[in-house]
């Protein structure tokens, strides 16, 4: 079911992360994983919600950091799941935390995956490639390094 929005070409990926370096790294890794993909970034939840509500296009995936000012990732996930149409878009929690409690909480909140930010761009782009291709993966994704 995640593949459906990927059929829109080029696929649109949304990343919500307050850390500029992480946004840059994600952009580089995504370029390798799916050169066609169009990335929209937001540095916090409220900003992202505005973009999502206004955007005329349905994203293929939304990546959400957990530890953010104004609105944390869990609140952000809940807000996304209330938006008509957008609520069908798979949300990937993308965070430094490898906390199982957060993983459980976000799974219950309707997230598709919990991706622990890898220590390598190669690992990140491999991960993104698999997620975007719709390969069936475990919910908790942590690259061993």
């Amino acid at each position, binding site marked *: 079911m995640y593949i459906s929005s990927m059929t829109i070409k080029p696929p649109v990926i949304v990343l919500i992360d307050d*850390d500029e370096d992480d946004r840059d790294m994600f952009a580089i890794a995504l370029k390798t994983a799916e050169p066609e993909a169009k990335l929209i970034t937001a540095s916090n939840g409220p900003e992202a919600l505005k973009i999502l509500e206004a955007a005329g296009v349905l994203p293929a995936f939304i990546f959400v950091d957990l530890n953010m000012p*104004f609105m944390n990732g869990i609140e952000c996930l809940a807000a996304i799941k209330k938006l008509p149409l957008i609520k069908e878009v798979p949300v990937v929690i993308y965070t430094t*935390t490898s906390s199982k409690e957060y993983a459980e909480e976000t799974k219950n909140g309707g997230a598709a995956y919990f991706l622990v930010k890898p220590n390598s761009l190669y690992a990140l782009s491999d991960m993104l490639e698999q997620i975007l291709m719709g390969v069936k993966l475990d919910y908790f994704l942590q690259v061993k390094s």
Partner: protein
Amino acid sequence: MTMDNPNLHDNVNQDPLIKSNGTTALKGGLMESEERYHKMIDEVQDYAILLLDIEGNIQNWNKGAQQIKGYTEKEIIGKNFRIFYQEIDRLGRLPERLINEAYTNGRAAHEGWRVRSDGTMFWGSVVITALHDSDNSIIGFSKVTRDLTERKLAEDRIKEYAREIELRNKQLEEYAYIASHDLQEPLRKIQVFTEMLQNSLDNKETAQRHLEKISSSAQRMSHLIKDVLKYSQVSQKELVFTAVDLNKVLLDIKEDYVLLIEEKGVAITADGLPVVTGVPVQMHQLFSNLLGNAIKFSGVEPHIDITANVLNADDIAQYSGLSINNRYTKITFKDNGQGFDPQYADQVFKMFKRLTNNAGTGIGLALCKKIVENHAGHISVTSQPDAGTTFTIILPLA
């Protein structure tokens, strides 16, 4: 003593009640027996055993009573037993309540602090028992008191240790979380940028950029560790409170920030700050963080205004955790800087919460909150974007 004790057998054999059937002997025996009972009570040293009349006036005294409570027999006979109670218990009519309970139920038991003749305290375990005559009407009370001060202090120590261990465990959990999350972040970046650097070695400009990223991540890591350490030191239990003159504290901090203050042209007004009861180094950290924040988030023509007022009784009642027996100062720390959306006011005091992507570690205001809590005070914040931020701090006056 066991039943095999030969002395015990001798005593039993010599008992006049068993030995003799004569009336005179019986009468003499009774007197002797009463005398012995008297002696038995009199000589007991570990228990204060006394006889109270129906009003609670002391009728007799034993060695234990003298040892535990300090009064001699001459001083105390005829006095009311209320004399052994602390003033607060006398006002609360505790002695009367215990006597009433013994009167109604035949017995009253109680543990609590009692006062010796020299004014020092001991932890007494008391049993008051009603005494009846042959018509079953109450003629007085016996009162047996044990000094359990040692046990009480040991129990209190154990409770204190347990509380401390709980606190330490909570702190450990907090630091484990910090280590697993917040300290990981710059480390991960160093790893990623190193990888990027390896791939860009033939492009000097890009390589240089990655090197700078590695360096700034390492620096951030270093700041985080230092700040976490500061926070952990503030969480230590052993605090030494003294009178701290906040005017002096502010003067020192202005000295620390002198370059930034001049560079940004910050005007600071502070009128008559009070002397508070505080830990000097923590007062310094508190005001240093607040001033540092106000400078960091300053707008045009930055102005910081610090005022202090004594908190009145109505105000004290409004804050939970303040004691009406203390005097407090309410310090407002007001700037005309960038401010923030007031709906996020609660977040700013949380560990690692930053509302902007600035160079800070997100520990400064968590540290401020911890410090104010250490002083049994209160801290809150109001703010408006582009209008400025006001911190309100309540601290105990010296």
